[in-house]
């Protein structure tokens, strides 16, 4: 039965839509992907991939504590996300240890704390869904939170779009013309923490960093214009989410992993065939060698 419906593309797409949980998952994951994709352009250009990894792992204890106390999990995650960055900055300044070491050290410490807390706090926290995401089992209160946070991040990023671009490109010039660089730095960090919080519902804590860097990296290979980069990044993130969810539905695969794998494949495609920066330069293949 299932195999038959499989054969037509139409039902491949429409069948899952008859399920309420699938409609919700597709919508929410697309929203989350769009937010992470938007931020992704800035993170890849700023060179904050490792920072993204750090923040997303560091939110773990925050999520656990918030669940245990019955608070919105986003609040706990946000506090620990920003806290980890502050701690990284503090240790870096007060010791001779190099920055990448400090980042690795702090986020694994936070992450470990989260795992220990889960084992200690005997509640109905589903470790699996935190680690690997559960877009199919998203609750109504989570939906509300996700929409609110996503809106907030999109508004912040849109408002300060150009300033953030300048901050990533040439912070010294920003400072020289009287733009508050300190504010922009923490704005970007705040957005990063918030995006990590919503992203972990889709793909989980371990893989959320992929949502924050892969779409940006893909877009970076495809364009030389910043605005286009943002658009491509958002689109590739949304498309990956949709592909990931459909594929996981039909083949019964882990959803978070499928979404990230879809992103990775799109990146590989750009890496190989991007018109200007790909290994095989698609343009040349079509137009022939001169």
């Amino acid at each position, binding site marked *: 039965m299932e195999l038959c419906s499989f054969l037509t593309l139409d039902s491949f797409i429409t069948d899952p839509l008859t399920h309420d949980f699938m409609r919700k998952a597709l919508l929410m994951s697309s929203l989350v992907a769009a937010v992470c994709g938007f931020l992704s352009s800035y993170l890849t*250009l700023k060179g904050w991939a490792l920072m993204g990894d750090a923040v997303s792992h560091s939110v773990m204890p925050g999520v656990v504590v918030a669940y245990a106390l019955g608070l919105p999990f986003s609040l706990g995650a946000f506090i620990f996300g920003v806290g980890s960055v502050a701690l990284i900055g503090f240790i870096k300044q007060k010791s001779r240890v190099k920055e990448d070491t400090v980042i690795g050290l702090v986020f694994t410490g936070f992450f470990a704390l989260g795992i220990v807390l889960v084992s200690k706090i005997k509640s109905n926290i589903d470790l699996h869904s935190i680690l690997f995401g559960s877009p199919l089992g998203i609750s109504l209160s989570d939906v509300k939170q996700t929409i609110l946070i996503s809106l907030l991040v999109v508004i912040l990023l849109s408002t300060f779009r150009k300033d953030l671009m300048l901050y990533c490109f040439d912070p010294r010039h920003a400072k020289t013309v009287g733009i508050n660089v300190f504010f922009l730095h923490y704005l970007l960090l705040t957005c990063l923490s918030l995006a990590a919080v919503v992203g972990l519902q889709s793909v989980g804590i371990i893989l959320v960093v992929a949502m924050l860097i892969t779409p940006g990296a893909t877009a970076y290979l495809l364009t030389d214009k910043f605005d286009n980069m943002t658009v491509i990044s958002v689109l590739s993130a949304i498309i990956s989410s949709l592909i990931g969810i459909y594929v996981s539905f039909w083949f019964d695969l882990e959803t978070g992993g499928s979404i990230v794998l879809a992103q990775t494949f799109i990146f590989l495609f750009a890496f190989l065939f991007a018109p200007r920066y790909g290994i095989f330069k698609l343009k040349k293949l079509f137009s022939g060698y001169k």
Partner: protein
Amino acid sequence: METINYQNFRIDAENICVDYNGKVALYDANLRLKPGQICGLVGMNGAGKTTFFNALTGFVNISKGKIRINGESVRSAQKDQTIAYVPQNEGIDSQFPISVWDVVMMGRYGSMNIFRCPRESDVQAVKDAIERVDLTEHYSTPIGNLSGGQRKRTFLARAIAQRASVLLLDEPFSGVDIRTEKLISELFIQFKNEGKTILLSTHDMIHVREFCDLVLLINKTVVAYGETSEVFTPENITTTFGGISPDFLFGPES
């Protein structure tokens, strides 16, 4: 003591010190420049040239001393778009997805509204600036596709569009072609006539002789400062470069 009207100085740095986490990068440095003066900043790598620039732009805080730009604090100078910084080519991510037009427009950001929507006057300023550096055919060229000289001119255009009266240039002549070098030297004369003040760092001793009225030799602090003809002597240069003979620096012919 003679009385000085501080308003007369475009740049007035008095006994400034900068340290990074307790490590001294620059101490007791003084510099006074008037409108229309061009000053060369000469020193070894790590002698504090970039730190000096950073202090003047407010990118790092000074731990001691006082800086006045046009008689104001650095902070108000930033707000008034008084200072422009033209970075070294190496200090810029040339692969950043951004066009010549967008970079030059960044010179206007400080005087735009919060969304940085360009007004008619901003567009005109950017057009004029790009024209002055002879890049009109490259409005939409990504900076990654420019030559080193063209990229340098793009950042000069940004400083022009900003309409700053103090220009800080980090190695303006390094890695540029003859055409760009000629254009920059022409611009310097125009800037001078417009009453702008220029502080430029350079490794090239010939450029100092050619363009700079004044020279500031530094090695963590000021080694010598004054009229180029008086201060730019082999002895002073040797001291600045930690004992390396000027013959080596100038080449045998000088």
